Protein backbone atom coordinates (compact mmCIF):
# COMPACT_ATOMS: atom_id res chain seq x y z
CA UNK A 1 0.00 0.00 0.00
CA UNK A 2 2.94 2.33 0.63
CA UNK A 3 3.75 2.55 -3.06
CA UNK A 4 0.19 3.65 -3.86
CA UNK A 5 0.22 6.17 -1.02
CA UNK A 6 3.44 7.88 -2.11
CA UNK A 7 2.27 7.82 -5.73
CA UNK A 8 -0.93 9.65 -4.83
CA UNK A 9 1.06 12.24 -2.85
CA UNK A 10 3.42 12.58 -5.83
CA UNK A 11 0.46 13.36 -8.07
CA UNK A 12 -0.68 16.07 -5.66
CA UNK A 13 2.83 17.55 -5.65
CA UNK A 14 2.83 17.68 -9.44
CA UNK A 15 -0.60 19.33 -9.45
CA UNK A 16 0.77 22.00 -7.10
CA UNK A 17 3.85 22.62 -9.26
CA UNK A 18 6.49 20.39 -7.66
CA UNK A 19 8.40 17.88 -9.77
CA UNK A 20 8.47 14.39 -8.24
CA UNK A 21 10.13 11.02 -8.43
CA UNK A 22 8.49 8.19 -6.48
CA UNK A 23 10.46 5.10 -5.54
CA UNK A 24 8.46 1.93 -6.13
CA UNK A 25 8.89 -1.57 -4.71
CA UNK A 26 6.25 -3.57 -6.55
CA UNK A 27 5.82 -3.30 -10.32
CA UNK A 28 2.26 -4.54 -9.99
CA UNK A 29 1.45 -1.42 -7.98
CA UNK A 30 3.59 0.96 -10.02
CA UNK A 31 1.92 -0.11 -13.24
CA UNK A 32 -1.58 -0.04 -11.76
CA UNK A 33 -1.33 3.35 -10.03
CA UNK A 34 1.07 4.98 -12.54
CA UNK A 35 2.78 7.82 -10.65
CA UNK A 36 4.16 10.56 -12.93
CA UNK A 37 7.84 9.56 -12.52
CA UNK A 38 8.90 6.38 -10.77
CA UNK A 39 12.06 4.45 -10.01
CA UNK A 40 11.52 0.76 -9.40
CA UNK A 41 14.10 -0.70 -7.02
CA UNK A 42 14.87 -4.42 -6.72
CA UNK A 43 14.74 -4.43 -2.93
CA UNK A 44 12.51 -6.06 -0.36
CA UNK A 45 9.68 -4.29 1.41
CA UNK A 46 11.11 -2.30 4.28
CA UNK A 47 14.39 -1.74 2.41
CA UNK A 48 13.62 0.81 -0.34
CA UNK A 49 17.19 2.14 -0.39
CA UNK A 50 18.92 -1.20 0.00
CA UNK A 51 20.98 -2.17 3.02
CA UNK A 52 21.01 -0.35 6.37
CA UNK A 53 24.03 1.93 6.85
CA UNK A 54 25.16 1.45 3.24
CA UNK A 55 25.63 5.12 2.46
CA UNK A 56 27.12 4.64 -1.05
CA UNK A 57 24.34 2.25 -2.03
CA UNK A 58 21.68 4.57 -0.66
CA UNK A 59 23.18 7.56 -2.48
CA UNK A 60 23.13 5.55 -5.71
CA UNK A 61 19.38 5.08 -5.40
CA UNK A 62 18.87 8.78 -4.77
CA UNK A 63 21.08 9.69 -7.73
CA UNK A 64 19.04 7.43 -9.99
CA UNK A 65 15.84 9.05 -8.74
CA UNK A 66 17.23 12.53 -9.28
CA UNK A 67 18.20 11.58 -12.82
CA UNK A 68 14.61 10.66 -13.65
CA UNK A 69 13.52 14.13 -12.62
CA UNK A 70 15.38 15.53 -15.62
CA UNK A 71 13.74 13.23 -18.18
CA UNK A 72 11.32 15.09 -20.45
CA UNK A 73 7.68 14.06 -20.29
CA UNK A 74 5.09 13.00 -20.86
CA UNK A 75 4.56 10.55 -18.06
CA UNK A 76 3.97 8.16 -16.55
CA UNK A 77 7.61 7.07 -16.50
CA UNK A 78 8.73 3.87 -14.79
CA UNK A 79 12.48 3.29 -14.84
CA UNK A 80 14.29 0.27 -13.35
CA UNK A 81 17.16 0.85 -10.93
CA UNK A 82 20.18 -1.33 -11.64
CA UNK A 83 22.49 -1.54 -8.60
CA UNK A 84 26.21 -1.70 -9.27
CA UNK A 85 27.38 -5.26 -8.42
Amino acid at each position, binding site marked *: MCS*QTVSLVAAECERQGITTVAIQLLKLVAEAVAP*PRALWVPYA*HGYPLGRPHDAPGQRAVLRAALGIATVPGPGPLLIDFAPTP
Partner: protein
Amino acid sequence: MAELDELPLRARLFLRAYPWRRIRPTPWTPLRRPLAECRVALVSSAGFSPQGQEPFDATVRGGDPSFRIIDTNTPVSDLGESHRSWAFDHSGIQQDANLGFPIDRLKELQSLGEIGEVAPRHLSCMGSQTTTGRLVKQTAPDAVHTLVKDQVDLALLVPV
Protein backbone atom coordinates in the same frame (compact mmCIF):
# COMPACT_ATOMS: atom_id res chain seq x y z
CA MET B 1 13.69 -8.13 -4.41
CA ALA B 2 10.14 -7.09 -3.61
CA GLU B 3 7.95 -9.67 -5.24
CA LEU B 4 4.43 -10.63 -4.34
CA ASP B 5 5.76 -14.07 -3.45
CA GLU B 6 7.81 -12.68 -0.56
CA LEU B 7 4.65 -11.53 1.18
CA PRO B 8 2.43 -13.61 3.42
CA LEU B 9 -0.45 -15.37 1.63
CA ARG B 10 -3.02 -13.06 3.19
CA ALA B 11 -1.19 -10.02 1.83
CA ARG B 12 -0.75 -11.55 -1.63
CA LEU B 13 -4.43 -12.30 -1.96
CA PHE B 14 -5.32 -8.81 -0.80
CA LEU B 15 -2.93 -7.08 -3.22
CA ARG B 16 -4.14 -9.11 -6.19
CA ALA B 17 -7.76 -8.24 -5.53
CA TYR B 18 -7.34 -4.64 -4.37
CA PRO B 19 -8.82 -1.91 -6.65
CA TRP B 20 -5.75 0.29 -7.10
CA ARG B 21 -6.43 4.00 -7.56
CA ARG B 22 -5.00 4.89 -10.97
CA ILE B 23 -3.70 8.42 -11.44
CA ARG B 24 -5.41 9.72 -14.54
CA PRO B 25 -4.67 12.07 -16.22
CA THR B 26 -0.98 12.16 -15.30
CA PRO B 27 -0.08 15.51 -13.72
CA TRP B 28 3.32 16.73 -14.86
CA THR B 29 5.53 19.58 -13.68
CA PRO B 30 8.78 19.87 -15.64
CA LEU B 31 11.89 20.52 -13.59
CA ARG B 32 12.36 24.27 -13.56
CA ARG B 33 16.13 24.44 -13.08
CA PRO B 34 19.23 22.22 -13.08
CA LEU B 35 19.45 19.69 -10.23
CA ALA B 36 22.45 21.53 -8.83
CA GLU B 37 20.16 24.51 -8.22
CA CYS B 38 17.07 22.63 -6.98
CA ARG B 39 15.60 22.66 -3.48
CA VAL B 40 14.73 19.05 -2.72
CA ALA B 41 12.29 17.65 -0.13
CA LEU B 42 11.54 14.11 1.02
CA VAL B 43 8.16 12.45 1.46
CA SER B 44 8.36 9.23 3.45
CA SER B 45 5.54 6.76 4.04
CA ALA B 46 7.44 4.85 6.73
CA GLY B 47 5.28 6.25 9.51
CA PHE B 48 7.99 8.34 11.16
CA SER B 49 7.08 10.94 13.78
CA PRO B 50 9.57 13.36 15.34
CA GLN B 51 9.81 13.47 19.11
CA GLY B 52 6.97 15.60 20.49
CA GLN B 53 4.54 14.77 17.68
CA GLU B 54 1.83 12.14 17.92
CA PRO B 55 2.57 8.74 16.39
CA PHE B 56 0.27 7.56 13.61
CA ASP B 57 -2.97 6.03 14.83
CA ALA B 58 -3.11 2.35 13.94
CA THR B 59 -6.77 2.15 14.91
CA VAL B 60 -8.03 4.45 12.14
CA ARG B 61 -10.18 2.37 9.79
CA GLY B 62 -8.65 2.33 6.31
CA GLY B 63 -5.37 3.82 7.59
CA ASP B 64 -4.39 7.07 9.26
CA PRO B 65 -4.27 9.70 6.45
CA SER B 66 -2.53 12.39 8.49
CA PHE B 67 0.93 13.84 7.88
CA ARG B 68 3.78 14.84 10.12
CA ILE B 69 6.21 17.63 9.26
CA ILE B 70 9.88 16.76 9.81
CA ASP B 71 12.26 19.67 10.22
CA THR B 72 15.37 19.14 8.16
CA ASN B 73 17.58 19.42 11.26
CA THR B 74 15.82 16.59 13.09
CA PRO B 75 18.32 13.78 13.71
CA VAL B 76 17.05 10.49 12.32
CA SER B 77 17.67 9.02 15.77
CA ASP B 78 14.83 11.23 17.03
CA LEU B 79 12.26 9.69 14.68
CA GLY B 80 9.83 7.14 16.06
CA GLU B 81 8.26 4.62 13.68
CA SER B 82 4.57 3.66 13.91
CA HIS B 83 3.82 2.03 10.56
CA ARG B 84 0.91 -0.31 11.16
CA SER B 85 1.66 -2.93 8.47
CA TRP B 86 2.59 -6.43 9.58
CA ALA B 87 3.49 -7.42 6.01
CA PHE B 88 7.10 -6.17 5.94
CA ASP B 89 10.25 -6.42 8.01
CA HIS B 90 10.53 -3.29 10.16
CA SER B 91 14.03 -4.04 11.44
CA GLY B 92 15.83 -2.26 8.59
CA ILE B 93 14.24 1.15 9.09
CA GLN B 94 14.56 0.73 12.85
CA GLN B 95 18.31 0.13 12.47
CA ASP B 96 18.77 2.94 9.96
CA ALA B 97 15.94 5.40 9.44
CA ASN B 98 17.72 6.67 6.31
CA LEU B 99 16.30 3.62 4.54
CA GLY B 100 12.86 5.20 4.74
CA PHE B 101 13.81 8.85 5.21
CA PRO B 102 17.22 9.36 3.55
CA ILE B 103 17.86 12.83 4.90
CA ASP B 104 21.54 12.20 5.67
CA ARG B 105 22.11 10.93 2.12
CA LEU B 106 20.34 13.96 0.67
CA LYS B 107 22.53 16.30 2.73
CA GLU B 108 25.59 14.48 1.41
CA LEU B 109 24.42 15.10 -2.15
CA GLN B 110 24.01 18.77 -1.28
CA SER B 111 27.58 18.84 0.06
CA LEU B 112 28.78 17.26 -3.18
CA GLY B 113 26.98 19.94 -5.19
CA GLU B 114 24.66 17.44 -6.87
CA ILE B 115 21.53 19.24 -5.67
CA GLY B 116 21.09 22.88 -4.77
CA GLU B 117 19.85 22.49 -1.23
CA VAL B 118 17.84 20.30 1.09
CA ALA B 119 14.40 21.75 1.85
CA PRO B 120 13.76 23.08 5.36
CA ARG B 121 10.78 20.75 5.94
CA HIS B 122 9.78 17.27 4.79
CA LEU B 123 6.61 15.18 4.92
CA SER B 124 5.95 11.91 6.69
CA CYS B 125 2.87 9.74 6.38
CA MET B 126 1.92 6.16 7.17
CA GLY B 127 1.65 4.28 3.92
CA SER B 128 -0.70 1.48 4.87
CA GLN B 129 -3.88 3.18 3.69
CA THR B 130 -6.51 1.07 2.02
CA THR B 131 -9.00 3.90 1.68
CA THR B 132 -7.49 6.85 -0.15
CA GLY B 133 -10.28 9.44 -0.43
CA ARG B 134 -9.29 11.41 2.67
CA LEU B 135 -5.65 11.40 1.63
CA VAL B 136 -6.32 12.57 -1.91
CA LYS B 137 -9.02 15.13 -1.14
CA GLN B 138 -8.06 16.46 2.28
CA THR B 139 -4.73 15.71 3.89
CA ALA B 140 -2.30 15.51 0.95
CA PRO B 141 -3.29 18.88 -0.60
CA ASP B 142 -2.70 20.65 2.71
CA ALA B 143 0.55 18.82 3.42
CA VAL B 144 1.94 19.42 -0.05
CA HIS B 145 1.12 23.11 0.29
CA THR B 146 3.75 23.18 3.06
CA LEU B 147 6.36 22.26 0.46
CA VAL B 148 4.99 24.84 -1.98
CA LYS B 149 5.38 27.53 0.69
CA ASP B 150 8.98 26.39 1.14
CA GLN B 151 9.55 26.84 -2.62
CA VAL B 152 10.48 23.21 -3.13
CA ASP B 153 11.42 22.34 -6.72
CA LEU B 154 11.61 18.57 -6.43
CA ALA B 155 10.22 15.97 -4.04
CA LEU B 156 11.54 12.42 -3.71
CA LEU B 157 8.97 9.98 -2.35
CA VAL B 158 10.01 6.89 -0.45
CA PRO B 159 7.66 3.99 0.36
CA VAL B 160 8.58 1.06 2.56
